């Protein structure tokens, strides 16, 4: 989230699209109710199903899953055509006026530079024209036909209300009503917030779904303001934290990158990360990249990371492919190229697409280690459960080691909520049996592996032998020790560069925040964006002062928000070019002639002049990007692409199947279905009574929603002779499930490109362990396809067939 849960109270209009907050984030949704009750805010829901959120909305519009980009570009087109634009914001705070290089073009669904064989673009033309002064060329009059605004205008022109209806199945009058309600928020004193979740991410173009709304929010001037923003309602309690700390193939903590092979040394690695400002006087905060990188290396390898050895640059792996994401890893496993695998609190047998392929892949492992508080299906993938897990145990040669870990109630530490608040919690119970903290388990694995390398030597042991490990109890580092290391500390006494006699920080002391980190090896910091969380003032994540002066929703003294305890990102953009709030009733920060101050920690240097320094300090431009340059693999503007399995052909580019640069493996292509074979458009979702595959282990939740079902419309039920509550078989080209049919008015057929499209809804909470009845998850059906930019699998739009059947044989 750019904003926070408690900030939603400040909005005028909530749009829930790509999520279902009333169902999946109920206690956060309360802030929508507050905004409606206290400010007269309105709620729009756009979804294939009439969801629990829709049931309390002011306006609901249906949409076919996988067509959000067409809908949103349609709204952008509407705003441009009807002059519903926050012009001052767009001109000053976006790259609308930037001139794009000659050679860049878009035609028939593709941008310049596409290579069909590589399924990738040469993105070199997706850039600004650079002037003789070395800066990007801008045309503040917006007259240049090649400026971003005019390119955008032309790009979205195809997405008329008629086209939106044809692609999305949203009746034109409903679309226009939504567009008109949204467009009102182009006023500087009206704000819309976007609340989305996995309904936008789990697509082969998920990143561009989100980008489309971000662009719309910029055009309306809704980023950086109270009650606005792009609010990703993240699915798990610490998915934000795990992302921030960088537990991904290609990341270092704090959104730094793992090197690739061609970056042979630190100088080469840094050469593409200079982040020189693209306009005069801009902050371009990533210019500090090296400080964060070197401080991380010092946190990892301490004395073994020296200026002479490039701060142990070679201790890091170098990637030969963009990432070993889970789709690639399971593809490799399927080919027999992976021998061992760890699952820490993760249940891929039910979480990854094409379950048959996942079972086959796990069966090819030599060994699998699981760490979990609960019996997961993954740790028992080799166990026969009749129809629910039809495997032959004897033929599976995988050794499985199942380790019992503690749950939230039994450990101390911080979780990062979707509003970026790092909230500390405390253990209140004794773990059952011999269950152990994950920190203990990870420390034990490291200590034992290290001991073997000490004794026996072996392949490049240096990064293991030199890993910083100065914990009081090496067998179990404490959460406080780890939090302090994440925050960072002075490795040597730090002196003021302006006055070398002046000590800034004594050796061994905690840094106050990342602003004092250095690139010479004198500071260490585990995750720079979290720096400030545990400094000499103590554990700021444990702060519990819930006061909120003037009821702004900021709660600055409640726990700690990254970065620097800032609650609303880009908050400088809440004020105009003079530094006055766009909306005085929703002041966030303001310029008093010499400095910025207000209700939040300013997201700008305190003395940065409002008419000189742009608010988007992380960007080299100082402004936000309506045109993404080469930073998105699938285009600087979003384009409507159909899901890989779609009920109709792509109306705007009939020859293109799916997103032309999405992650696919050739071995999976034969398993993609056409609508002739599989006519119905399926989607997956959560229910409020369950959390993934965990709560089926709980008596209460297993009682509330005991058994697997699928939802279909009355029309489809009549067509197929399916009675409410009867058994159905649902199958895709990859597998099948059996479920009870819920025949509902909440799903209705849509008319897309003149043809009726039936939606089949598949909730995701059942498996073969726990207290609930046995069932299946949608991943038995979903295709092995990933988003073009971040490889998220396409769980939200795929094709199935359905027919009446009999009950499964119970096991």
């Amino acid at each position: 989230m750019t904003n926070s849960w408690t900030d939603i109270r400040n909005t005028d209009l909530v749009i829930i699209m790509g999520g279902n907050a009333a169902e999946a984030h109920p206690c956060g949704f309360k802030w929508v109710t507050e905004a409606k009750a206290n400010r007269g805010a309105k709620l729009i829901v756009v979804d294939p199903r009439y969801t629990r959120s829709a049931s309390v909305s002011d306006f609901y519009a249906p949409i076919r899953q996988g067509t959000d980009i067409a809908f949103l570009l349609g709204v952008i087109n509407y705003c441009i055509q009807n002059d519903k634009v926050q012009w001052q914001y767009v001109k000053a705070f976006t790259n609308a006026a930037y001139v794009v290089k000659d050679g860049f073009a878009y035609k028939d669904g593709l941008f310049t530079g596409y290579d069909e064989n590589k399924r990738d673009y040469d993105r070199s033309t997706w850039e600004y024209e650079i002037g003789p002064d070395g800066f990007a060329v801008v045309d503040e009059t917006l007259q240049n036909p090649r400026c971003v605004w005019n390119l955008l205008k032309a790009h979205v022109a195809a997405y008329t209300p008629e086209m939106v209806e044809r692609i999305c199945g949203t009746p034109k009058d409903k679309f226009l009503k939504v567009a008109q309600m949204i467009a009102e928020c182009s006023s500087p004193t009206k704000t819309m917030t976007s609340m989305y979740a996995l309904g936008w991410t789990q697509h082969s173009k998920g990143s561009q779904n989100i980008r489309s709304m971000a662009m719309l929010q910029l055009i309306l001037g809704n980023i950086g303001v109270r009650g606005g923003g792009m609010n990703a309602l993240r699915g798990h309690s610490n998915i934000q934290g795990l992302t921030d700390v960088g537990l991904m193939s290609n990341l270092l903590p704090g959104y730094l990158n793992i090197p690739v092979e061609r970056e042979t040394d630190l100088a080469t690695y840094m050469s593409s990360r200079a982040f020189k400002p693209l306009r005069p006087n801009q902050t371009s905060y990533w210019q500090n990249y090296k400080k964060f990188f070197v401080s991380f290396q010092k946190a990892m390898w301490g004395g073994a990371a020296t200026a002479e050895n490039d701060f142990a640059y070679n201790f890091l792996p170098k990637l030969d492919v963009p990432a070993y994401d889970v789709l690639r890893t399971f593809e490799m496993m399927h080919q027999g190229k992976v021998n061992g695998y760890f699952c820490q609190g993760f249940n891929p047998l039910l979480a990854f697409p094409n379950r048959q392929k996942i079972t086959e892949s796990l069966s090819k492992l030599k060994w699998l280690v699981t760490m979990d508080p609960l019996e997961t299906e993954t740790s028992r993938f080799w166990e026969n459960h009749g129809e629910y897990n039809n495997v032959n145990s004897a033929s599976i040669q995988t050794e499985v080691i199942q380790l019992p870990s503690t749950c939230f109630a039994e450990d101390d530490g911080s979780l990062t909520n979707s509003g970026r608040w790092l909230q500390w919690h405390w253990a209140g119970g004794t773990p059952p049996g011999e269950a152990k903290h994950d920190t203990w388990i990870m420390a034990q694995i490291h200590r034992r592996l290290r001991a073997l390398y000490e004794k026996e030597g072996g392949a490049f042991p240096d990064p293991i032998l030199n890993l910083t490990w100065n914990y009081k109890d090496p067998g179990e580092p404490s959460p406080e020790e780890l939090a302090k290391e994440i925050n960072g500390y002075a490795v040597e006494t730090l002196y003021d560069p302006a006055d070398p006699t002046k000590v800034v920080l004594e050796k061994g002391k905690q840094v106050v925040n990342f602003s004092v980190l250095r690139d010479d090896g004198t500071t260490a910091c585990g995750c720079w964006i979290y720096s400030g969380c545990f400094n000499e003032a103590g554990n700021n994540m444990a702060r519990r002062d819930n006061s909120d002066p003037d009821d702004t929703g900021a709660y600055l003294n409640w726990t700690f928000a990254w970065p620097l305890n800032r609650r609303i990102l880009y908050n400088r953009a809440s004020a105009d070019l003079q530094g006055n709030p766009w909306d005085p009733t929703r002041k966030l920060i303001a310029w008093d002639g010499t400095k910025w101050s207000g209700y939040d920690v300013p997201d700008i240097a305190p003395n940065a002049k409002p008419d000189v320094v742009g608010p988007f300090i992380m960007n080299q431009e100082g402004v936000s990007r309506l045109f993404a340059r080469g930073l998105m693999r699938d285009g600087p503007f979003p384009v409507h692409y159909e899901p890989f399995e779609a009920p109709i052909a792509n109306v705007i580019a009939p020859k293109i199947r799916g997103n032309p640069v999405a992650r696919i493996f050739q071995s999976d292509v034969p398993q993609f279905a056409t609508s002739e074979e599989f006519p119905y458009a399926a989607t997956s979702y959560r229910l409020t009574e369950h959390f993934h595959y965990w709560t089926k282990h709980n008596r209460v939740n297993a009682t509330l929603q005991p058994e697997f079902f699928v939802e279909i419309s009355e029309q489809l039920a009549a067509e197929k002779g399916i009675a409410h509550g009867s058994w159905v078989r649902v199958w895709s080209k990859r597998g099948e499930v059996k479920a009870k049919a819920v025949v509902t008015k909440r799903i209705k057929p849509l008319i897309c490109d003149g043809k009726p499209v039936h939606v089949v809804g598949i909730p995701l909470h059942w498996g073969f362990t726990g207290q609930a009845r046995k069932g299946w998850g949608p991943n038995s059906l979903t295709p092995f396809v990933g988003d073009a930019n971040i490889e998220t699998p396409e769980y939200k739009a795929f094709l199935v067939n359905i027919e009446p059947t009999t009950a499964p044989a119970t096991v």
Partner: protein
Amino acid sequence: MNVELSRRGFLKAAGVGVAGTTIGAFGFAELEAAHAAAIRPFKLANTMETRNTCPYCSVACGIIMYSKGDLRKGETAEILHIEGDADHPTNRGTLCPKGAALKDFVKAETRLKYPMIRKPGSDKFERVSWDQALDRIARLMKDDRDANFIAANAAGVPVNRWTTVGFLAASATTNETAYLTYKVVRSTGIVAFDNQARV
């Protein structure tokens, strides 16, 4: 104020009339004090209260766990009840059907209690000691890493990749666990490293 303020401590203070600044820090002043003093002490007299947050969705509602036994005194503690934390700015004491049933997660019959190993081809798990399990894991890792570690590419550039073993991390562990996991996994050269973030 970077200390954990326990509700019990607060109530004790309120009970003997040392209100003033302590109570002000909660932001609810006399109202909560009076309310709490009126109805809470009986229940709280026999339990330890601990602040935590719901581990399910990222609303991260504040909760209070009530247990018999005090972990901080080295005692065994059994969680008896979990409820919403009224002091928490996001949920203000409310919980959804998942958070309201959290005690059933803590006490689920299918909570794991002992390390287990399933041998190749077997149809059952067998209990092992932690030492057996961890020594086995370290051995499996070391043998595979030594056999398959890619120290340098064809051009002789050090690449330090270990591609034959992968690690999936958990989205409900703490940041501190995540960071320690990061250190341990990265130091081995594992590149097939991921979490629920992009799933």
